[in-house]
């Protein structure tokens, strides 16, 4: 058993997963403190699902190791009782009623908070006797979330839970999640490519790109450390030496740098702009040259 330092709910150390000769996830190292809501960001195919499945013990790592709530993810009741997992596409038994799912949960788990689940679904006005297949996508996601939360997990893993939902259902799902986190000591890791949603609920961030971890940090420090520097065209080697340039764009007259500050910025000739989470993500995911970032830049220069 790998022991994680106290207060660390999720830890990955050089974690990797290979399918055939292709690495779906590689050199993944990060730690999420207990009680955090961690957003897992990355483009499609960046390894988000693979990482979550490794953390849930549904697949075995090809390299490195993981610890979730102080245990190695594996096929044992001690581990499974500690986690909640919600897979992509929200698998449920479509012909079963919501009630059937609640009863399944009660039968298959040692710890099961039935009143809380019923209460949660009642508040959302989800009829318990209805077949799950006839519910809306948002309602199904809520049912699946209620099931995962009723286990009273220490760590909850959600794989793109809101991707298929309309904005209203998304908001409702995320507020249910936020309430659950406020309740206790639950740690959540939640993958999404919708950065705006993550910004609303997350206070921690892990960024995957091309199967590797690019960034793993507290959200506030992420926002504080990343800046857009705009200035007249000139040599940027001083900046590149002291800080990490994620992305740059140069025109005839000016240069824009998306930078992670590794210390104070001394050069006063740069115009320093704050970046929002989406802009930071785009810089990391290498999409800076495409439309959204251009929009961001024109906003800045306007």
């Amino acid at each position, binding site marked *: 058993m790998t022991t994680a330092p106290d207060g660390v709910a999720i830890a990955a150390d050089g974690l990797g997963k290979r399918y055939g000769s292709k690495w779906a996830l590689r050199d993944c190292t990060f730690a999420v403190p207990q009680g955090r809501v961690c957003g897992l960001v990355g483009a499609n195919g960046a390894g988000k699902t693979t990482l979550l499945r490794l953390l849930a013990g549904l697949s075995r790592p090809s390299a490195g190791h993981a610890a979730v709530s102080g245990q190695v993810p594996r096929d044992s009741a001690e581990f*499974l009782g500690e986690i909640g997992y919600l897979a992509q596409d929200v698998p449920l038994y479509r012909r079963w009623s919501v009630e059937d799912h609640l009863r399944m949960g009660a*039968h298959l788990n040692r710890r099961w908070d039935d009143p809380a689940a019923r209460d949660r679904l009642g508040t959302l006005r989800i009829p318990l006797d209805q077949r799950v297949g006839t519910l809306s996508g948002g309602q199904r996601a809520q049912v699946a979330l209620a099931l*995962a939360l009723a286990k009273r997990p220490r760590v909850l893993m959600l794989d793109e839970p809101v991707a298929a939902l309309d904005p209203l259902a998304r908001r409702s799902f995320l507020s249910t999640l936020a309430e659950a986190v406020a309740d206790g000591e639950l740690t959540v890791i939640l993958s999404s490519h919708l950065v705006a949603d993550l910004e609303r609920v997350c206070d921690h961030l892990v960024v995957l790109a091309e199967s590797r971890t690019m960034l793993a940090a507290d959200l506030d420090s992420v926002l504080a450390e990343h800046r857009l520097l705009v200035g007249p065209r000139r040599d940027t080697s001083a900046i590149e030496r002291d800080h990490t340039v994620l992305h740059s764009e140069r025109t005839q007259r000016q240069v824009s740098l998306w930078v992670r500050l590794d210390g104070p910025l001394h050069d006063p000739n740069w115009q320093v702009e704050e970046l929002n989470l989406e802009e930071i993500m785009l810089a990391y995911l290498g999409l800076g040259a495409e439309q959204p970032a251009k929009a961001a830049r024109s906003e800045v220069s306007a």
Partner: protein
Amino acid sequence: MTWLLWRQHRAQAAIAAILLGAFAIPVLVTGSSLHAAFTACRASDRCGGDLLNGYENVNTLVDLTILVPAVIGLFWGAVIVGRELETGTVALVWTQTVTKRRWLGSKLITLFAAALLSGAAVSGLVTWWSSTRNATLESRFGGLQFDIQGVAPVGYTIFAAALGLASGVIWRRALPAMATTVGGYIGVRMVVELFLRPHYMAPVSTLSGLSKGFGPPTGSLNVGSDILLHGRVLGGAIRMPEQCASGSSRPASDACLDRLGYQLRQTYQPAGRYWTFQWIEFGIFAALAVLLTVVAVVLLRRRDA
């Protein structure tokens, strides 16, 4: 797990119970009257082929049980794990506080207990009902009789269930798994029936004159027959010798051939080997079922879900 399995498979169980009932009632009713008629005719020594007159429908129904193993492989074996892999619900179940091992174990026990029970129930009914019919038949080895009576069909049933299970795990989708199950089942059954069954034991041969008539003894499984001339097997088409061709009737020409030294060699499995063959056939299919189940379990545990 018991609750989960019952909730998941109660519809299949109900359908199976209804079908079994619908099959058992006519078989039990006609079987009793057939037995009575058979006892009566045997007492007066006047049992004939007309014994089954009026029972044609039930006869057909009984013959149709040849399909039972394939149906069980199709609707139980191929879906019990395959469907859950297809819909992704394994990710839901495997993250409850239930290990994969326990989940799979309960699924296997349910599948094989159900297959064994229903296979045995159907075969038992058919065997009991057919005891009268068998008396009117040349051989219990022939036609469908070997395949629907005794223990062989029970072996087929667990084999079909295991084949469905393995196909479901390999394909991870119910529909191709079902197609594979049917195709594989028919293929294996044909290979065994045509190429293996006649050779489970060294066959018995008898030499006789052609005039003694063709065909192996009553109740046996025919393996083959050859025409011999002076102890040598004649291959290919045999030309009727000139001096016998003029014979006006079949017995006359057969007697003529006997005089020239032609002989008939019959190779067959004697009737007394029926139950040995039944158990050998059961053993083969049970072994295949075990093998396929091991393949399914290993694949499911090794490959990530």
